[in-house]
């Protein structure tokens, strides 16, 4: 073998604390190394050309580059090696930036460590063999999980791009949080009026299959060929027959059901359609409140239903869908303010959350758009808004800024004045975060034109006095304690990850942060990709986001899916497990341990039991390799021999002793 070694300076990133020329010199003495040099930027155009030229001039058959992490530039160098006519797996990378120069200051020690790492890479390369990728077909259908505005946008863009879309929504209607909002900032246009047409488009698009009131149970397979098990939760109403006429809602005697769509403001009937613009506009029975289920008799809805759609015996069903890509758009939930005893921990009826206030202001809400406070139905004159409730607060494990509360609070203050002209609004805030087109102007409008009193400080206590709520806080700009006699207090609750987000992440095999938000592949350059091929993100499941950003990400995820599906076949990664049949004793330990179900039990022509790896399913994790008692199953490009060669290079004396 003829190996060439290239030591990258990475400007001063590596050369600052590593003697690159010395590393190159040392490499010249390694077995099979016929060429070694240091280079300023190996990844640059001239740097890559230098590698290609050296391959041609010195007849190299393998290349080692010592530079940054393989996550950054391994594909770059593999392509360069391939352009020079070598197999791209005849290349090894030693990470002397993240693993050496960035973490140590001692130049001599760093140089020694860099030499060790290069030696390991060269030794491994001596045991490498060319590998060939195989091609496989892809299923050009896409699953979108979550029917909020991000999921809707992704679904519509994919469907318009000619893809078949499967949209799974947990609740009985798509629309998500946006459907609950009265107006949107900074234009104060009606939320449902702008979202409604998109929801209708989803319902009517021939390429979109909508599963509402359904959840993803299991995800199998891999990019291009996922198999999804979807649980269609029972509604006790045959949606094929239900016309959404609403007669059942009029007659249902159980009128005290928790109203999920209105976040507990007012009540609804046990059988209900969540809101007039619901898509699909179908009824569902809430078994927790239905008299048929709680008391065993009633059945009024079944009697009045003109199409006979009610079925109390209905059970959950399961559907299997095959898709080639997945977009997670599961959105967010709101912080539970019961964690703040100083704000009443949820026991004061006139201390409500911002989303409940949206429902109070909405024309489709329980008060038909008239702001009435929950305790006595009176119109509030002094309304206090408290920001950062469950945001930027380490003591409740929510140190992050939710990003949109400043803006919706400014909007709610403006709307309060519109609804009740003789009202006054007070906003307790710490900082105003309004970066966005026309956002800061909007906040200023709330202050200057709508006379909203902004008070810089937190609130330490809310307590009732007569029919008022006394809000005691600080005005840090005045350097004083302040008190407001409020008729209604609105808490700007922050965003947190959706309930069940970590469980879904585990099904999708994507990672999530300590707060349950899904991790993007790169915070700047791969914002809608995940580290699992074929799974993309859109909207607030990745972190708190306002409507424009969520819509933007929905479209971005759709663009990623469309570009993935622009090819008919994908190349499989050849770095997978392979069974050496002559060594395999058929114990099937590998079958048991494989987390992807990629190893199958088979028999050879003499009927001996043998394991076989399904190449397209294997993810190359290597669990089977360490399980196999015969070392018969080997992960290609990371075989026992290759890894031992690295270990031997690193500690030769210890290996000799054994």
């Amino acid at each position: 073998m003829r190996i060439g070694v290239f030591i990258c300076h990475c400007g001063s990133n590596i050369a600052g604390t590593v003697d690159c020329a010395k590393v190159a010199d040392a490499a010249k003495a390694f077995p099979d190394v016929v060429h070694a040099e240091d280079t300023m930027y190996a990844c640059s155009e001239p740097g890559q050309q230098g590698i290609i030229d050296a391959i041609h001039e010195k007849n190299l058959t393998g290349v080692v580059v010592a530079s940054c992490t393989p996550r950054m530039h391994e594909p770059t160098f593999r392509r360069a090696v391939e352009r020079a006519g070598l197999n791209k797996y005849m290349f090894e990378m030693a990470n002397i930036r993240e693993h050496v120069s960035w973490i140590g200051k001692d130049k001599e020690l760093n140089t020694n460590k860099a030499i060790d790492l290069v030696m390991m890479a060269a030794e491994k390369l001596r045991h490498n063999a060319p590998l060939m990728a195989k091609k496989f077909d892809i299923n050009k259908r896409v699953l979108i999980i979550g029917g909020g505005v991000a999921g809707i946008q992704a679904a519509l863009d994919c469907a318009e791009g000619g893809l078949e879309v499967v949209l799974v929504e947990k609740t009985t209607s798509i629309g998500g949080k946006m459907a609950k909002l009265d107006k949107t900032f900074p234009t104060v246009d009606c939320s449902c009026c702008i979202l409604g047409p998109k929801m209708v488009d989803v319902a009517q698009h021939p390429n979109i299959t909508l599963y509402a009131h359904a959840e993803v149970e299991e995800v199998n397979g891999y990019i291009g060929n996922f198999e999804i098990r979807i649980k269609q939760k029972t509604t006790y109403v045959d949606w094929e027959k239900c016309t959404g006429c609403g007669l059942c809602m009029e007659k249902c005697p159980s009128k005290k059901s928790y109203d999920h769509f209105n976040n507990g403001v007012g009540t609804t009937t046990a059988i209900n359609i969540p809101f007039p613009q619901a898509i699909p506009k179908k009824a569902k029975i809430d078994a927790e409140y239905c008299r048929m289920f709680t008391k065993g008799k009633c059945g009024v809805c079944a009697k009045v239903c003109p199409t006979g759609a009610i079925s109390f015996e209905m059970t959950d069903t399961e559907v299997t869908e095959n898709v080639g890509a997945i977009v997670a758009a599961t959105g967010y939930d709101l912080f539970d303010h019961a964690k703040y005893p100083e704000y009443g921990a949820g026991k004061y009826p006139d201390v409500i959350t911002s989303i409940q206030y949206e429902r109070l202001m909405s024309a489709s809400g329980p008060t038909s758009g008239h702001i009435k406070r929950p305790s006595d139905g009176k119109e509030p004159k002094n309304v206090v808004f408290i920001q950062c409730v469950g945001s930027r607060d380490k003591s409740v494990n929510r140190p992050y800024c939710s990003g949109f509360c400043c803006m919706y609070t400014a909007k709610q203050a403006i709307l309060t004045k519109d609804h009740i002209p003789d009202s006054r609004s007070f906003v307790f805030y710490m900082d105003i975060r309004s970066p966005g087109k026309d956002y800061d102007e909007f906040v200023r409008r709330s202050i200057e034109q709508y006379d909203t009193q902004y008070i810089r400080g937190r609130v330490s206590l809310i307590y009732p006095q007569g029919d008022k709520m006394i809000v005691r806080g600080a005005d840090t700009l005045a350097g004083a304690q302040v008190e407001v006699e409020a008729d209604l207090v609105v808490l700007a609750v922050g965003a947190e990850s959706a309930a069940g987000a970590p469980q879904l992440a585990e099904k999708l095999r994507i990672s999530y942060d300590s707060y349950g938000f899904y991790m993007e592949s790169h915070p700047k350059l791969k914002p809608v990709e995940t580290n699992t091929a074929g799974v993309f993100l859109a909207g607030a499941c990745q972190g708190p986001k306002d409507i424009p950003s969520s819509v933007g990400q929905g479209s971005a995820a759709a663009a990623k899916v469309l570009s993935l599906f622009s090819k008919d076949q994908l190349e499989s990664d050849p770095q997978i497990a392979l069974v050496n049949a002559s060594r395999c004793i058929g114990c099937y330990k590998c079958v048991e341990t494989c987390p992807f179900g990629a190893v199958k039990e088979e028999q050879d022509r003499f009927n001996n039991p043998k394991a076989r790896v399904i190449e397209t399913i294997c993810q190359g994790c290597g669990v089977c390799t360490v399980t196999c008692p015969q070392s018969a199953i080997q992960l290609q490009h990371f075989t026992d021999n290759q890894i031992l060669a690295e270990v031997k290079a690193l500690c030769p004396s210890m290996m000799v002793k054994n």
Partner: protein
Amino acid sequence: MNTYKITAADNTFTAEVEKRSGQDLNACYQCGNCTAGCPFSFAYDIQVSNIMRLVQIGQRDKVLQCHSIWLCASCQSCTTRCPNNIDVAGVMDHIRHMAREAGLATERKVKVFVDSFLDSVERHGRVYEMGLMVSYMAKTGRVFTDVELAPKVLPKGKLPLKPHSIKGKEQIAAIFKRFREVKSK
């Protein structure tokens, strides 16, 4: 309004308060929750959140000469409310100690009360209420302080004329002695 010379500020002051209290003062983002909950804010010359700010910008004299640090009741409302888990009441305690060491006591009567209290404990092993009262009145001249309480507490035996003794009086006195020894080193 004063102009604080921020660059000429006493950086050692901030570091000293941090070291003594064990609190990360950079964590304070000036939300004002400590001031919002403080039951003594009506009496303060500088609000507690402002004291935190003055410490952050190293204003030693301003902080050590303020009255609030002596009026603080150590009720811990600020510590409980702080979203950044800073022990604000503890910081106030340590600043008060620093003021005392610097020979500053802007609320002399508070200092006299505390000193009289500790003197009494040192001497008797526990507080001797009558002695404490006499000592405090003699040093401050506030003869009629809380005098209206006397008819209520006297019949209940809460204000005995002679001090109660306790077991282990000497050990208590030894604590004071040891404190002085450590301090003088």
